[in-house]
């Protein structure tokens, strides 16, 4: 099977240059795929899918009464990133996370950035993820956002942009690790010749970081992963990370607050918990402080947290910094705290609360992408060039009714990577979500999760919207 018939109509292909020449970093991969016959490649794709199925990396198809499950679509052609490019991305991400943490600390303390007139106060106050309850909070070691998954995209001209910051409970790191494991099983030959940067130390780094957060004086801290439960769509990831770190996975009901500590219920009585990697939203964490109707959280846990007797990662309240309106200010935020220019640029963003921006957005709905400021997963979004008149009218109405809640951006022509479709290759749009850990130092996992829109021409890569994933290889020279 080979790429001779491969044509990609998109402006930037991650594997091939515009003249059809293979990018040097992808050569060993393309050579190997070219040397395989179609059946061989298909067998490998099937083997990869079977391995994913047996590892239970699946989601439920709720409409299916027999309870059949599907794997998250996975394509075996990896996305390849040159190391020189990666090193720049890594630097840019470090810079961004550093600045955003300083921003978070400032937002919940003195708000110097507001006083300096860089970010308007109403932008912060009106962000739905701003948490009044976190004002004055001092998270352990002064870090707010320990785990981040930043969404990057590449436009047609090759520029890489930050599309979204995810600072709450970003998911997907487990897929990076599992995709790599499957790829190693599937293509052992290429790993011999390509110098792919490893990702398998992520759980160890994560555990190191979590242990570092433990309250003063605790020698061997007990770390747990807190999940909303096995019905959560990211449950696989929660249990996977707990297993890889060798720590206990707990649900809210396993934990209680007593004597000023968080304790877990065991067959042998109660045991103290020191660090919680929580995969539960702020709102559900503590019914006494946030939503009183939450049955998934632990009443009283915020008291213990404030007293410094348990650590939470990420800290509550981080969502204010990934609000899509605040996003537009990140280059200024970086400048303000670090006195540096942003290494990775933002996508130009029109803020609909601004009259001029709103007028522009409303006039150009057919060219722009419109996003609700507080939605994620590809929900609440209009892709102008792919929309109908009715959809545009609907969004115009929504923007006028609630301008604060909308932003607009030019429609980027996302870069492509080939996927295997019925015995040949076709290009599909991709994004990239690298994972960043903020502990003693800032660590960026080489590569990250490449999400791919499986539908031809589609720009929406979210798995909830029919997207799949690919392994991402950062290749050393």
């Amino acid at each position, binding site marked *: 099977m080979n790429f001779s018939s491969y044509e990609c109509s998109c402006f930037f292909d991650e594997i091939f240059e515009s003249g059809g020449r293979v990018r040097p970093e992808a050569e060993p991969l393309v050579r190997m795929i070219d040397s395989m016959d179609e059946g061989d490649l298909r067998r490998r794709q099937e083997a990869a899918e079977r391995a994913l199925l047996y590892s239970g990396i699946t989601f439920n198809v709720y409409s299916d009464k027999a309870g059949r499950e599907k794997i998250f679509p996975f394509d075996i052609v990896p996305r390849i990133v040159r190391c020189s490019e990666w090193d720049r991305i890594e630097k840019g991400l470090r810079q961004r996370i550093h600045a955003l943490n300083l921003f978070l600390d400032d937002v919940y303390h003195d708000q110097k950035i507001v006083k300096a007139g860089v970010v308007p106060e109403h932008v912060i106050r009106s962000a739905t993820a701003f948490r009044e309850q976190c004002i004055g909070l001092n998270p352990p070691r002064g870090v707010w956002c320990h785990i981040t998954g930043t969404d990057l995209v590449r436009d047609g001209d090759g520029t890489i942009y930050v599309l979204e910051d995810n600072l709450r409970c*970003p998911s997907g790191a487990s897929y990076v690790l599992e995709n790599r494991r499957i790829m190693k099983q599937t293509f052992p030959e290429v790993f011999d010749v390509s110098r792919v940067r490893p990702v398998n130390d992520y759980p160890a780094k994560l555990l190191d970081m979590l242990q570092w957060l433990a309250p003063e004086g605790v020698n061997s801290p007990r770390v747990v992963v807190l999940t909303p439960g096995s019905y959560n769509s990211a449950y696989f990831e929660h249990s996977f990370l707990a297993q890889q770190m060798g720590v206990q*996975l707990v*649900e809210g009901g*396993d934990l209680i607050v007593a004597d000023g500590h968080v304790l877990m219920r065991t*067959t042998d009585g109660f045991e103290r918990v020191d660090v919680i990697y929580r995969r539960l939203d702020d709102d559900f964490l503590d019914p006494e402080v946030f939503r009183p109707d939450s049955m998934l959280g632990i009443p009283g846990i915020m008291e213990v947290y404030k007293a410094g007797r348990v650590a939470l990662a990420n800290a509550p309240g981080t969502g204010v910094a990934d609000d899509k309106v605040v996003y537009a200010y990140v280059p200024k935020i970086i400048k303000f705290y670090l006195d540096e220019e942003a290494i990775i640029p933002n996508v130009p963003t029109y803020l609909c609360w601004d009259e001029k921006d709103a007028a522009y957005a409303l006039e150009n709905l057919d060219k722009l992408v419109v996003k609700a400021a507080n939605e994620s997963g590809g929900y609440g979004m209009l892709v102008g060039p792919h929309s109908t008149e009715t959809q545009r009218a609907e969004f115009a109405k929504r923007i006028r009714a609630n301008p604060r809640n909308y932003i607009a951006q030019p429609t980027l022509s996302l870069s492509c990577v080939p996927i295997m479709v019925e015995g040949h290759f076709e290009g599909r749009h991709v994004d990239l979500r690298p994972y960043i850990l903020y502990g003693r130092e800032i660590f960026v996992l080489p590569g990250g999760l490449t999400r791919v829109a499986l539908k031809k021409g589609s720009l929406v890569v979210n798995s909830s919207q029919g997207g799949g994933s690919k392994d991402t290889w950062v290749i050393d020279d």
Partner: protein
Amino acid sequence: MLSRVAQSIYWMSRYFERAENVARFLDVNFRLMLDLPSGMAVQWEALVRITGDYEPFIKHYKRATRETVIQFLTFDTENPNSILSSVRAARENARSVRESISSEMWEQLNRIYFRVGDAASRHLDAPEEFFEEVRLASHLFIGLTDTTMSHNEPWHFARLGQALERADKTSRILDVKYFILLPSVADVGTPLDEIQWTAVLRSASALQIYRQQYGRVSPLRVVEFLVLDPEFPRAIHFCLRRADESLHAISGTPQGTFRNSAEQRLGQLRAELDFTRVSDIMRIGVHEFIDDFQVKLNGIGTTIHETFFATRPIQPSQSQVLPKADRER
């Protein structure tokens, strides 16, 4: 260990053992079909009766035939004890404690779950082979539990669940023969009788060992073997000793003493079997003995729940507010 995790591991192994044993029940009948003299019909209804689910079965299927019984016991998702439901329940429990069991166990459970689901969606051409597959899958799982898990508290909960389930099911396999297959006193000791007892032994994988120990197949000896043998791993007595060992390993209480009611009840039942002769069972009547045994075993299950798992608050139901983290970020 977390109470919730202990409970899930216990039920994981109970349910998988249950699936294996339903496959064994069905196997008894398939073997009988092959061995019975022509003109003698196999009683499919009996099979459903021993599982204790006769009422829902007859309500839905009306008549017990080979097809309806296989469907009900194998693939019916409305029957909580069918092979499919049991394997699914085992897997759901495993899924909620994935980080506490080995990946090998988890993958094996997944494999058989998808296999059974796949078989459910098409016609079963060779049921015997399929039941064999379920049995082997269970053995592989038990082997993996033994060889890939540390033999500490979680493992003891797995073994406890498995041993209690197996004790219950062996008693039911015996009950098929004694309560239902026994046609009349006149048949006792006839070749037909021997065929039936042989099928019972086979379905407990006990025929070969039985022969080595006793030679001829005789009802008295079969009962003695399947109930009282302390060394054969499917014998009730053996299972209870295993369960008792694990229960004491969990609490650290020396065997022969007790600190909680689970240990007390299991200890009592175990002691009863330690000091019972087969003639005692025959005097009470095999069916009556088994009935009484099952009631006591259920009681032990309840006290285990109260002692180790019940400290857990009520599970949030699926219908209440779920966080938005449900969506991908």
